[in-house]
């Protein structure tokens, strides 16, 4: 055992040296693409047989009979845990609500200059020819650019577009906009809006999307694993590229390891049940207070790592003064924390002892930072981990990505495929005047409704001032803001401000229904593509071979954008005269060249493509032994963090200078705008809108998988048994959930797996207003975001605060409204 450790150490020392002083002989040159080898490919489809493809939910094997998909199953099985999302590909292709033809809203078609935007969502749809639709989009895009300038065109277009490095719809949209004159984009995302902005101040890097201490190390060295506000069994079904599926494999191993596992979450998740973990349920949004109670206990009892704090952190003394009440006369001890969190003092003290006495890995999810003052929880978690002093040790410290994209699955050595880019080459390089200009107008992604409603408004953002642009034209692809954005009714109002809204979609999603021009797009099973799997591991290169013919009049986004580019005189810049297969070969060849230089064998593209099998790489030994922050711990001078001090900043002078009252210079407990502990509550229950176990956000809601989880044909709501009794609600009852922002209809699940006073409605149910286009109308399907709050986490990050919301519940007794969101609109 010791031998291995010593060996790893020496490898690391070398690595550290390389990081500072690059060696020229280690530098390699990338091979150039052999353009001459590209030839046209036969695109004959398999009529009867099997096709390998991939989605966010992993590599898939599709069975084709008479040109139709009849079965969808996982390509591989690496865990006993099932991934429900993998089985419904046929439903996705043959959905009842596929958009069949280009469609234009009636009033818009009549007069695009006076399009009656107030009718969006309620107007009739008119079928137009593909060419007519392309001309209309092109003309109106040109007009907006002429009248309003670049800042009039919004193409931030956030969402979980389909997998694939070729048909990457959001990037293709950006490419179109780049090639034709510029656009306004956005900063950040909905998943980690708060954390990804605060972490660079604290750790010098974004942290949330980075490789974790490898699972083999955790399994070998961690004694205690804490899963804090995460439900990996649900969230590990997907990856941004395509899941390598080893995340679930390792959680299965964790279960079998017999380690002590603690789940801290208002919900007893399926992960908690599966791992047979200890369940601790704090009041929602009080994790910071709980961490402070633990921190206070540790410092007070002298069970903390003074040396680590001194060597590797900045500003602990200032934080300590706050913790001990020197600055605000409030001592943040266990009893203080107990009153806020609802967790008894004994348990808080026990947690402190367990964390300190054992090698403990604190795995945190992201839900806790999608909250008011969401910058604080992970900052406090890092502070707590610093007090414990196990950061950089095998199996210790914290991890913010074990629940996502198979974090901790070791990184392989192989080739990385290329992908579609927003830049067209022609405009690449410095001196893009429009880029400079639009960067100035780019705003935090979750401020979209605020921006649409308040053009010209100035907001604070991470030390800068941002002015909202005056948006007249929106183009959205691969996303569903009518479901993913908070406070839907405000968004519905905001959505009526622009003159033109264009959406490329495969389905009549709530967002497509709120557009003016809808272009029918293919699903990824109707086109050829290629992807890596495992965002951190890069385990496989997966072919995504077209399985069936394009349905109805559906076109690839690439086709649609090529044709718009042609209208606007930018066809060559956009396409570089390359076909789908030429791009895919080029992307593959990039990986091939890289692998070849690393003396790894990869088949040539033709062989790979005709074989229709993924390529799997291996992780070198040192990557299986990766320990996050080990290099920093080994030598903080040679391997400083990217912070101003080069250390973990428990106190940030940079943030101090911003003088934001809602984000002070060290982790701080601040009451959220709505929570169960507030003096005058606007509603009775705290609502958690967790990641759904059987969807990718809103994706797959329109498949028959829904039948497995819907309750009385509505999105389920989890209600604590005692609360249900008080409210006279039984299993399967229809429940109206409401607050001052809106109302939704849900189906009751009565359970003890949720804390009293808390309800859970998973996010992602399609917004289905009983009266389409009318703000305030009841959502008949149960979209949680109708009830959430649309204010920023703080001036620092401007992240969304989906998990900060109070709601009321009552048994629904009115006339049961029809649910027709999954059918063709009228």
């Amino acid at each position, binding site marked *: 055992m010791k031998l291995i450790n010593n060996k790893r150490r020496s490898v690391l020392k070398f690595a550290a040296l390389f990081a500072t002083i690059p060696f020229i002989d280690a530098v390699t040159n990338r091979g150039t693409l052999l353009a001459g080898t590209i030839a046209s490919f036969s695109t004959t489809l398999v009529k009867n047989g099997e096709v390998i493809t991939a989605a966010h939910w992993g590599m898939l094997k599709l069975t084709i009979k008479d040109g139709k998909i009849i079965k969808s199953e996982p390509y591989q099985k690496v865990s006993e845990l099932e991934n429900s999302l993998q089985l419904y590909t046929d439903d996705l292709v043959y959905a009842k609500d596929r958009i069949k033809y280009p469609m234009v809203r009636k009033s818009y078609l009549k007069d695009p200059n006076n399009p009656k935007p107030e009718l969006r969502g309620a107007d009739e749809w008119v079928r137009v020819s593909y060419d007519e639709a392309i001309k209309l989009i092109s003309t109106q895009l040109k007009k907006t650019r002429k009248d309003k300038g670049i800042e009039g065109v919004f193409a931030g277009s956030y969402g979980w577009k389909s997998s694939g490095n070729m048909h990457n719809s959001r990037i293709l949209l950006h490419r179109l906009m780049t090639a034709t004159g510029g656009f306004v984009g956005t900063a950040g995302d909905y998943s980690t809006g708060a954390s990804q902005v605060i972490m660079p101040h604290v750790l010098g890097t974004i942290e949330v999307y980075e490789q974790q201490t490898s699972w083999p190390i955790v399994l070998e060295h961690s004694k205690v694993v804490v899963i804090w506000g995460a439900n990996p069994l649900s969230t590990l079904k997907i990856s941004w590229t395509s899941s390598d599926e080893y995340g679930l494999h390792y959680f299965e191993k964790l279960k079998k390891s017999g380690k002590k596992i603690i789940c801290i979450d208002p919900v007893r998740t399926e992960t908690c049940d599966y791992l047979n973990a200890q369940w601790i349920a704090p009041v929602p949004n009080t994790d910071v207070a709980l961490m402070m109670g633990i921190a206070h206990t540790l410092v007070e009892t002298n069970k903390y790592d003074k040396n680590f704090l001194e060597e590797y952190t900045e500003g602990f003394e200032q934080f300590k003064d706050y913790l001990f009440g020197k600055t605000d006369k409030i001592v943040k001890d266990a009893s203080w924390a107990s009153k806020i969190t609802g967790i008894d003092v004994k348990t808080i003290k026990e947690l402190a002892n367990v964390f300190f006495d054992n090698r403990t890995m604190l795995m945190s999810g992201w839900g806790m930072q999608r909250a008011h003052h969401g910058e604080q929880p992970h900052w406090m978690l890092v502070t707590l981990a610093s007090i414990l002093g196990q950061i950089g040790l095998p199996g210790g410290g914290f991890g913010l990505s074990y629940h996502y994209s198979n974090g901790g699955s070791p990184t392989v050595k192989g080739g990385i495929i290329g992908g579609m880019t927003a830049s067209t080459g022609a405009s690449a390089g410095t001196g893009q005047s429009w880029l400079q200009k639009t960067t100035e107008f780019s705003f935090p992604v979750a401020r979209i409704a605020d921006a649409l409603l308040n053009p010209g408004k100035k907001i604070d953002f991470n030390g800068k001032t941002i002015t909202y642009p005056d948006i007249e034209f929106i183009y959205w692809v691969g996303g569903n803001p009518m479901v993913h954005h908070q406070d839907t009714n405000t968004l519905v109002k905001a959505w009526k401000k622009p003159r033109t809204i264009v959406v490329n979609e495969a389905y009549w999603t709530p967002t497509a229904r709120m557009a003016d021009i809808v272009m029918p797009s293919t699903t990824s099973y109707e086109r050829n593509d290629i992807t890596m799997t495992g965002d951190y591991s890069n385990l496989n290169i997966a072919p995504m071979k077209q399985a069936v013919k394009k349905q109805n009049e559906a076109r690839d986004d690439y086709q649609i954008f090529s044709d718009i580019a042609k209208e606007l005189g930018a066809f060559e810049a956009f396409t570089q005269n390359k076909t789908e297969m030429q791009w895919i070969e080029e992307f593959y060849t990039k990986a091939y060249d890289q692998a070849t230089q690393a003396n790894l064998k990869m088949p040539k593209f033709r062989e790979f493509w005709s074989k229709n099998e993924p390529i799997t790489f291996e992780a070198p030994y040192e990557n299986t032994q990766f320990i996050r922050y080990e290099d920093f711990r080994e030598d903080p001078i040679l391997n400083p*963090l*990217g912070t101003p001090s080069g250390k973990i900043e428990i106190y940030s002078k940079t943030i101090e200078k911003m003088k934001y009252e809602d984000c002070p210079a060290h982790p701080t407990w601040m009451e959220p705008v709505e929570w169960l502990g507030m003096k005058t509550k606007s509603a009775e229950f705290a609502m958690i809108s967790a990641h759904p176990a059987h969807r990718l956000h809103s994706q797959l809601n329109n498949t028959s998988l829904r039948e497995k989880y819907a309750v009385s044909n509505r999105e389920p709501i989890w209600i604590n048994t005692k609360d249900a009794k008080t409210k006279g609600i039984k299993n399967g009852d229809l429940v109206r959930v409401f607050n001052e922002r809106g109302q939704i209809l849900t189906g009751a699940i009565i359970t003890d797996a949720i804390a009293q006073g808390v309800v859970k409605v998973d996010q992602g149910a399609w917004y289905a207003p009983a009266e389409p286009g009318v703000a305030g109308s009841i959502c008949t399907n149960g979209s949680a975001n109708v009830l959430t709050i649309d204010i920023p986490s703080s001036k620092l990050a401007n992240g969304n605060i989906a998990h900060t919301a109070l709601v009321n519940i009552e048994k629904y007794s009115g006339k049961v409204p029809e649910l027709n969101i999954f059918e063709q609109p009228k």
Partner: protein
Amino acid sequence: MKKSLFFILAFATLCLHANEVKYSSSVKNLFESADSSGSKGRLLPTSKIKILEKNGENIKIEIEGYMKDGVSSAVYYSIGKRILVAGLSKNAEFEFKTISTSKDEEGVEWQKVSFTAFTKNDNLTDDLNDLYKNAQAIFDVNCATCHPGHPSSEYTANQWPSIIKSMLTRTAMTKDENFLVTQYLQKHAKDMKEGESK
């Protein structure tokens, strides 16, 4: 007569190259003397150098930068920011001159220095802007396929290396491209003012 002619010629040759300013386009090895075989330092891409002497394939160059008190192995581009101009071996013996000393916001002392080194006469360019263009193009192609590209002004000079390092395994960038792109992003970072350098 012949001797003096030789000197004049030699002097003329020297003059021809003296103070010729160039920028490194790749990571370059630095040597202590013209005939030493082991390299004792690395010059980072986009770093400015002055050619003092040319002798066939080899050149003697002068490099300027800042050294932080207590860190002997690194020459930085500006005070208080970890933008590397050159990394040096611990036992390196380059000829250093101290130009001035000053203190950063934290009260740490920084020396403005220049030192001479020998290197090969290759991978050098007059056109810094072209290097930056190239770096931006590599950045666009490799770092904007999974997510939209980030403007260089989004992160600070100190943050960029950590951020690039954390994402690097997901790209096909070579080591040399990595160093070029990182240098470019650092020198155009949020906290870099126009033309900030020595």
